[in-house]
């Protein structure tokens, strides 16, 4: 980890947001970036240009980031500021987003490092130009039901041992049967949810140039009582993006799940190694 020594309190660092092909300097100049003070500008390297901002190195050390990232409000502020620059750039020219917090000790270092990666930027631009990223989330159709009443007959699970099942002679067996009922319903629900997720994913893959599964989001962001069963994202050609809403509508009807689409996004998920 590079540390900013105590001898260099005034040192500057260069924050890189994205790499573009033929960006419009006017669009960039209007953006605020992640720090107040220095305006955003273009750093040209070869045929490409990076959108950069000069920041105080002392504000962007590893320690500073650690503190910032453990504060939900700060994390949100920086993530949105970064995303805003990337989105604005992408609206005006082909853009490859960099993840949050790519920093260099000055312009020369940045140009060297970026230039060395030209081939990767070129490949990413080639793959994503004319495409957008679309997020697709699927939520299970119904909330989980409560345990059945004690003594209620559990659904039969096939092949439980040659029909030896009798009316519960004791509390222990009744308990086990009840547990088995819960397990069976849980399994059914699980299977249904998995099937729906696979169906939706397969349908979107057909429209998309590429697709990726993202980690499922917790209920905190999914919304109360909603169970997310698919969080995927697809790279879709602009000429096909109009089909997505209708596809979601049809899948919603056929699977009984709730389906949400978000986008178009700058293709963050498809510029790295795929």
């Amino acid at each position, binding site marked *: 980890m590079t540390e900013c020594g105590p001898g260099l309190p005034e040192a500057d660092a260069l924050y890189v947001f994205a790499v573009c092909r033929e960006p419009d300097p006017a669009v960039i100049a209007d953006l605020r970036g992640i720090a107040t003070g220095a305006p955003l500008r273009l750093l040209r390297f070869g045929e490409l240009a990076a959108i950069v901002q000069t920041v105080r190195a002392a504000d962007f050390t590893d320690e500073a980031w650690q503190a910032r990232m453990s504060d939900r409000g700060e994390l949100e502020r920086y993530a949105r500021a970064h995303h805003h620059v990337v989105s604005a750039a992408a609206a005006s020219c082909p853009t490859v987003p*960099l993840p949050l917090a790519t920093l260099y000790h000055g312009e020369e270092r940045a140009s060297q490092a970026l230039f060395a990666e030209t081939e990767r930027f070129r490949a990413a631009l080639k793959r994503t130009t004319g495409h957008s990223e679309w997020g697709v989330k699927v939520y299970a159709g119904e909330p989980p039901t409560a345990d059945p009443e004690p003594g209620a007959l559990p659904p039969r699970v096939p092949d439980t041992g040659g029909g030896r099942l009798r009316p519960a*002679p004791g509390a222990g067996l009744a308990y*086990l049967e009840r547990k088995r009922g819960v397990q069976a319903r849980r*399994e059914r629900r699980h299977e249904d949810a998995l099937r729906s997720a696979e169906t939706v994913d397969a349908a979107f893959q057909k429209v998309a140039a590429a697709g990726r599964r993202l980690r499922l989001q917790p209920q905190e962001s999914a919304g109360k009582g909603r169970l997310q069963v698919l*969080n995927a994202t697809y790279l879709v050609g602009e000429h096909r993006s109009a089909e997505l809403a209708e596809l*979601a509508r049809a899948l919603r009807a056929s699977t009984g799940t709730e389906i949400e689409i978000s986008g178009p996004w700058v293709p963050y998920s498809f510029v790295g190694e795929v």
Partner: protein
Amino acid sequence: MTDLDLGREAYPIPGPQNTNLADILERVLDKGIVIAGDIKIDLLDIELLTIRLRLFVASVDTAKKAGIDWWETDPALSSRAARHALQDENRDLRERLEALEAKSDEKTAS
């Protein structure tokens, strides 16, 4: 919901204002083309600690109660892994039930 989302986004690229924070984070932290920087920030660590643990694990218990726990394995492998886990658990339960029934039979017989 979908129709609203789509209708609201008049711009070619959605602005940050109407976009869910979790959706942004999973893209700006994890994705984008990664190149080596001078100031190295271990975002993976940060993410694991602050996002995956604090935000995500909070609801794992709730979701487990609903029987869905397959993000615990790699999402790409999840369906198969989850099926196997469920089959194992199911078989285990059946065996335990049969063992108990057998004991109960013995008692009735004696």
